């Protein structure tokens, strides 16, 4: 493989000859892990045991894992383990435990080395991206698409997040999934996901990015439906896949438009061509809106967010890695990557901001009344993604990416913490043979006594997401909201109009929505913590003594993430809090997004320090208020276990049922589409037109013509003679008569 890759990087680039030349190896390492783990997963490699009923009639065939998982159906949908027979560990589980996380450790080390090389060769002074071209992939007419990777400050940041957080979650998975019969399959999918995610962030043009985009979607589908013997899990996977198709349609249209109007699809080429586009013109606005449709699918924004809460059917580390930290942020990355397009399409930016703000408050309000611990986190993720879109949409690309990074830290921590909780709950229920829901917060309570490490770390993450200084989320969320306020006062977006209303008004609305969502965020996160860790324990008398902290391989990554969630804000300190180097991330990303941000800012004056202080004070006040409200109003002592709980009423019922959006979609879209497909497309066009008229019709026609011909063959010589004579007369007549 090595000598085949003729990396034709620009010979004059400062990164040439450094560790950056090994860029191709970063995604290839997880791919290697996928190949090995995938091969192991299809080997018939179980320990045969007398207590395993699945083996009795199934034998050692290559598909034994499927049979195992049928018996393995996990009622909670979240944690490994088996209620019915002795757990069988995979024979090569030890090998998978080395290779699966190992490739990620190597990939992260390599990324770190490349990062160091970038720092050593100019860091943010490297103006041009470092592009490695491997081969010409699609040379069609004017279209020339290379298989190329692009390394710049933005993709470096994303690569570090993907490999770093991914590595920690891989390590956590070793503990969480080790007793699952599908252990190698799990790591194969997870490795494959990281490969595609790296393809996404490193790709040097939109089509390569799109391959990664589709690939992560595939892995998401595979991992949501990892325990596919439960129909609900398989359905959740399908839902995610299908909803994402709608977004991908937008992405494709955007690429077609780009090629048609700019003649290029690589980032450098599009960036150059974007300069000649009309500012705020129809073309660039359409491209940006279609791109955003793709983002709304992948990053779970209104109206395509419905798949993400259902995606919690997958194993919890998957939720942490794919559905919180990395894949769902791909849309944010895409907009930050396409900053040169969005910054000249203010109407599209306005749409992004508004959709983001709406999503933020909408999902946050649903999160207020969810009982499933993972559902709370899922809606929280949707809500936080809304914030990121508010950031990148308002031209604050740095703020958006900053929140992406800090969110990756604290949300991964929250998910892994909830995974640790579910793991403990499941173990306890498993030991006593109880079949209650291990993910319902009404069955938890008081877990701080049995899981102190998880308890402390999850509080750190909760404070971070709520926006309490000095935790990471405070800095990033405050930067988004502060920038949004500044943009509302003066920017190209504020000067644009949407539905006849000036952008300034829209942006102020979005800012208020963002503040309200921040309040709700603090409330629902505190609610989750109170119900899970505080108050009396509701798990059950016999189960209580079996609740215990997860092994070190799971708490270790939690601790690292906890540190990152606490200090992640130092990545990009605001000017008013000079606790270190101010705006490090902003400075770092300047070569990629600086020009676009400056264009959006349109020469606005810096926000005055006093105003900034009051904005920050307001944000902190709101966060503290949200937490205080939750603490004051919610009494974990009064909560009863799930099976004794009374159903909700009034508006609470609407919130518990997620505003009935799924039901509305089902009635308004799914049923009509299925009905039309069934009656018109299937019975009408397929069976009637194609089968009836096309396939069978042509056969009937051929048979009819044959029948007519056969009637001429009467066998009567007299008739033949008559026809012959008449034919001769006709021929003679045709020749002689003119």
């Amino acid at each position, binding site marked *: 493989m090595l000598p085949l890759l003729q990396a034709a990087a620009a010979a004059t680039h400062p990164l040439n000859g450094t560790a950056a030349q090994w860029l191709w190896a970063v995604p290839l390492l997880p791919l290697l892990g996928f190949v090995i783990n995938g091969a192991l997963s299809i080997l018939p490699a179980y320990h045969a045991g007398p207590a395993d009923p699945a083996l009795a009639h199934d034998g050692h065939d290559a598909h034994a894992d499927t049979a195992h998982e049928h018996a393995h159906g996990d009622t909670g949908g979240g944690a490994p383990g088996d209620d019915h027979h002795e757990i069988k560990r995979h024979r090569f589980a030890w090998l998978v435990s080395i290779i699966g996380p190992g490739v990620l450790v190597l990939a992260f080390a390599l990324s770190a080395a490349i990062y160091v090389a970038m720092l050593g060769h100019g860091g943010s002074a490297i103006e041009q991206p470092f592009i490695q071209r491997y081969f010409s992939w699609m040379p069609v007419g004017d279209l020339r698409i290379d298989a190329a990777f692009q390394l710049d400050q933005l993709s470096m940041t994303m690569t570090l997040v993907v490999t770093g957080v991914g590595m920690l979650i891989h390590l956590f998975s070793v503990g969480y999934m080790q007793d699952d019969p599908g252990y190698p399959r799990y790591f194969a999918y997870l490795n494959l996901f990281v490969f595609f995610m790296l393809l996404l962030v490193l790709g040097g043009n939109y089509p390569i990015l799109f391959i990664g985009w589709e690939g992560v979607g595939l892995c998401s589908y595979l991992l949501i439906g990892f325990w596919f013997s439960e129909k609900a899990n398989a359905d959740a996977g399908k839902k995610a896949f299908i909803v994402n198709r709608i977004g991908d349609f937008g992405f494709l249209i955007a690429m077609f438009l780009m090629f048609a109007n700019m003649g290029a699809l690589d980032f450098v080429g599009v960036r150059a061509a974007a300069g000649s586009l009309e500012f705020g013109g129809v073309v660039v606005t359409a491209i940006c809106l279609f791109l955003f449709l793709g983002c709304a699918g992948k990053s779970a924004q209104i109206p395509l967010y419905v798949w993400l809460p259902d995606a919690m059917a997958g194993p919890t580390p998957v939720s942490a890695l794919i559905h919180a930290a990395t894949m769902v942020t791909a849309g944010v990355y895409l907009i930050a990557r396409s900053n040169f397009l969005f910054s000249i399409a203010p109407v599209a930016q306005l749409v992004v901001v508004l959709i983001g703000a709406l999503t933020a408050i909408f999902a946050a309000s649903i999160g207020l009344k969810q009982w499933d611990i993972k559902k709370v986190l899922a809606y929280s993720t949707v809500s936080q993604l809304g914030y990121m879109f508010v950031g990148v949409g308002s031209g604050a690309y740095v703020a958006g990416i900053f929140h992406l990074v800090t969110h990756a830290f604290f949300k991964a921590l929250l998910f892994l913490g909830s995974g640790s909780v579910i793991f403990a709950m499941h173990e306890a229920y498993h030991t006593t043979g109880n079949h209650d829901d291990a993910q319902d917060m009404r069955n938890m309570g008081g877990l701080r006594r049995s899981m102190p490490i998880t308890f402390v770390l999850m509080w750190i993450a909760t404070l971070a997401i709520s926006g309490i200084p000095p935790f990471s989320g405070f800095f990033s969320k405050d930067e988004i909201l502060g920038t949004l306020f500044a943009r509302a006062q003066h920017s190209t977006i504020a000067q644009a109009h949407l539905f006849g209303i000036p952008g300034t008004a829209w942006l102020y609305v979005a800012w208020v929505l963002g503040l309200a969502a921040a309040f709700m965020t603090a409330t629902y996160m505190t609610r989750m913590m109170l119900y899970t860790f505080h108050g009396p324990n509701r798990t059950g008398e016999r189960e209580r003594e079996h609740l215990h902290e997860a092994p070190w391989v799971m708490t270790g990554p939690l601790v690292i993430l906890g540190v990152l969630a606490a200090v992640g804000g130092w990545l990009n300190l605001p000017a008013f809090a000079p606790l270190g180097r101010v705006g490090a991330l902003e400075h770092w990303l300047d070569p990629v997004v600086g020009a676009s941000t400056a264009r959006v800012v349109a020469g606005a004056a810096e926000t005055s320090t006093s105003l900034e202080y009051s904005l920050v004070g307001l944000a902190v006040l709101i966060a503290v208020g949200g937490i205080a409200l939750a603490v004051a109003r919610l009494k974990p002592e009064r909560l009863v276990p799930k099976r004794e709980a009374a159903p909700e009423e009034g508006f609470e019922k609407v919130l518990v049922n997620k505003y009935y959006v799924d039901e509305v979609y089902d009635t308004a879209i799914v049923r009509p589409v299925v009905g039309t497909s069934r009656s018109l497309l299937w019975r009408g066009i397929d069976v009637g037109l194609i089968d009836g008229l096309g396939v069978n019709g042509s056969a009937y026609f051929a048979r009819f013509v044959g029948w007519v011909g*056969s009637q001429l063959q009467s*066998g009567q*010589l*007299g008739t033949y*003679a008559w026809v012959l004579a008449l034919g001769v007369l006709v021929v003679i007549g045709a020749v002689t008569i003119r």
Partner: protein
Amino acid sequence: MLAEALFFSAVLFVIGVVGVLTRRNAIIVFMCVELMLNAVNLTFIAFAQAYGVAGQVFVFFVMTVAAAEAAVGLAIIIALFRHRQTVDLQNINLLKG
């Protein structure tokens, strides 16, 4: 002289054609075919008077082929009769499609 000969042979030919088209007995149809052949022979002879002997040479060929054809055709008819006990063409339709 030529016109009369051509007229005569045309009459003979039409008689043959009408016989082939209208009669149902295989032998009579066969004889009518012979009649048509000989009408053509007569035409050849008539033209040979005006344009040289090539027409006469042709007549010999036609007579030879007609003789062979008569032998084969009669043999077929006899075989047919042995098989079906009839030479009525309306009853002989084995090649019906």
